[in-house]
């Protein structure tokens, strides 16, 4: 099945896939905006939440922030390699990025297990409900990004569809950026 001519046009001066991923991100921003906006309003109204938040471990959060930001670097390097037409290197860098996502999720799993075993479950109180919901929606995006990244890497390896490397990179940076908002809101603000 060949692509429609429509897909190859760019009357707005931007390739269609890139334009589409920006609109996708626009729609995601308001989803996370809804969660975080609700969280902030509650947080401002309940001083006691600072006590609950004191139970989160900012060092683990900081480590995860570092891991995610580093994975964004390899996503950029993958894009650079793809621009040069080096699909093999781009694919390897994408796998490295995926690995970063996997480390992030493992740390998260460890962190959550500890917290849950100490009674800080999603139903403990509304702070923890927001904590798990917001981070959970974010983690779902990390997982989706990793799956897509592996698919993109599979084709990029054969030097095909190299423009996709940039697209998944943009998405991955967005997922990082959401974490940059989550980290201070859930871990640092006491």
């Amino acid at each position, binding site marked *: 099945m060949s692509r429609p001519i429509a897909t190859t046009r760019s*009357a*707005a001066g931007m390739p269609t896939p890139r334009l589409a991923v920006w609109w996708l991100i626009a729609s995601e921003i308001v989803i996370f905006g809804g969660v975080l906006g*609700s969280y902030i309003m509650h947080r401002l109204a309940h001083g006691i939440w600072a006590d609950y938040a004191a139970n989160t471990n900012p060092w683990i959060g900081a480590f995860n922030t570092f891991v995610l930001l580093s994975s964004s670097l390899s996503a950029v390097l993958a894009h650079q390699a793809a621009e040069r037409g080096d699909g093999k290197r781009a694919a390897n860098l994408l796998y490295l990025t995926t690995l970063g996502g996997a480390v992030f999720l493992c740390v998260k799993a460890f962190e959550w297990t500890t917290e849950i075993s100490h009674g800080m479950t999603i139903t403990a*109180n509304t702070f923890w409900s927001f904590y798990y919901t917001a981070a959970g*929606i974010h983690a779902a995006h990390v997982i989706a990004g990793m799956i897509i990244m592996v698919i993109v890497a599979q084709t990029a390896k054969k030097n095909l569809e190299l423009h996709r490397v940039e697209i998944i990179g943009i998405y991955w940076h967005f997922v990082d950026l959401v974490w940059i908002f989550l980290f201070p809101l859930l871990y640092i603000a006491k």
Partner: protein
Amino acid sequence: MAESIRVEHAAHHDDHHGHHEMSFLEKYVFPLDHKMIAMQYMFTGMFMALIGGFFAYAFRWQIAFPGTEAPFWGQVSPADYNSLVTNHGSIMIFWVAMPVLIAAFGNYLIPLMIGADDMVFPKLNRLSYQIFLLSALIILASFFVEGGAFGGAWTAYPPLSTKAEYSLTPLGSTMWITAVALEFVAFLLGGINFITTAMNSRAPGMKMWDIPMVVWMIVIASILFMLSVGPLLAGGIMMLFDQNLGTAFFDPDRGGDPILWQHLFWFFGHPEVYVVLLPAVGIVAEIITVFARKKLFGYKTVLYTAIGTGVLSFTVWAHHQFIAGIDPRMANVFTVTTLLISVPIAEMMFVYIATLYGGSITLSTPMLWALSFIFEFLIGGITGIFLGASGNDIYMHDTYFVLAHFHYTFYPIAIIGTYAGFTFWFPKMFGRMMNDKLGKLHFWLTIIPFNTIFLPLFVLGAAGHHRRIFDYRNFPELSYPWMWDLQALATYSLIVMLLAQVIFFYNVITSWISGPVAPKNPWNSNTLEWTATSPPPHGNWPEGLPTVYRGPYEYSHPDRKSSDYWPQNEPA
């Protein structure tokens, strides 16, 4: 024959897109062609409209003749009543107005009107419909589960929606919110496709101001939807967790806040009105210019007012919550923004009337629908000003006045707008002309009962009739005999209106089978879709995509001597 035309086009398609004969499944069940996906949305939406209409009949029967058996339904129990009104609202908004006005017309018209061969992401388009269909099946299935379908109103306010011990629909509530969330995902995917297609895939020569108004409107509506639905999607996840995991986001006993849901819901819910309004307004613009043979008066004005409406629509949501305990000072702010938003809409209506002024008007079926849209929507808009004023709304809240008001907005949008567009583009969609006499009969038998349903309800609402009362015999001091007469009038009118739809479906089926074959451009219209064959093949213009030389509304142009229209693709 329509069938043979389609076969011929399938052959074209094969030349155009990849040399193989398509099976029935590929062509009709899992299509990639934007026109076929549009038809899937259209007919799913119409099917859901019949269900939603039937629900309305069942609960209107209970309101007018409480305690008697509704033919074809039986005794309406209080639980039935609640789930019928809830799902009537949900279905009409999410599974009728959205799929038909945005998804069906958007899918059909955007590529054809901007001169492209398809949407930019055909597979995403197909996925969007499949998710939508899944959501429709879930909402329908919820009627057959333990406890029945959700009955906490289409706004799903907690705690009724989150606590099974209140709603008594443990599974129905979860299925409702799941179906709604999936439906949103479907339209987010569809919206990205619409916006990207209109931005990037326009025919060579088609500049910003050469885009037909309906395309602009669907794109603006998609952007509005995209930017407003996110918080509600987040709220939907929270509600699912409240229902099933035992969190307390919306439970004040355990630190949550039920008003939060109302904010999340209406932050989407109010822009949603404009999400469905704008495509209908766009459809009307296409029709009145063609049948008045005049240029659209103030193209850019319409566009800017649409954008202005869109921006303002994000600032009015709390007018739904005047009695929910919000700060009265906030109520003042939202009163002002609500009254302000009527300005751009009124301006748009004036522009349309100015377009009609001095035109040579043909009262064809689509034109009748388009004119009635302007007339009926005006009533909806003006009564909205009553309700936007918080002082008045405190008395009017949840009465039949509110109900009549929003039916005077949504009915013109979802039903009149759809019939206008459907009868206008029917020749293009199916390659046949519709029967105009039957079309007009259907028009009058729909529009007169519509008014006799809802005009009485304004009176009842102003007299204090409350819209959520299952059986007014329990409140004899609040209802007088004349009120019963008006309720019965509304219900009889509804039955007449529903029966009149048989004429429409008869007309569609007979015209599709044996109507006169439609030429390429039966209405002498300018826009690009009329330069393709009727119906267009897969790929739309196998002989080569068109180029655009002028705006879409050059009717009765002084420089054009040969005819009173000037197609967009004709070189000067």
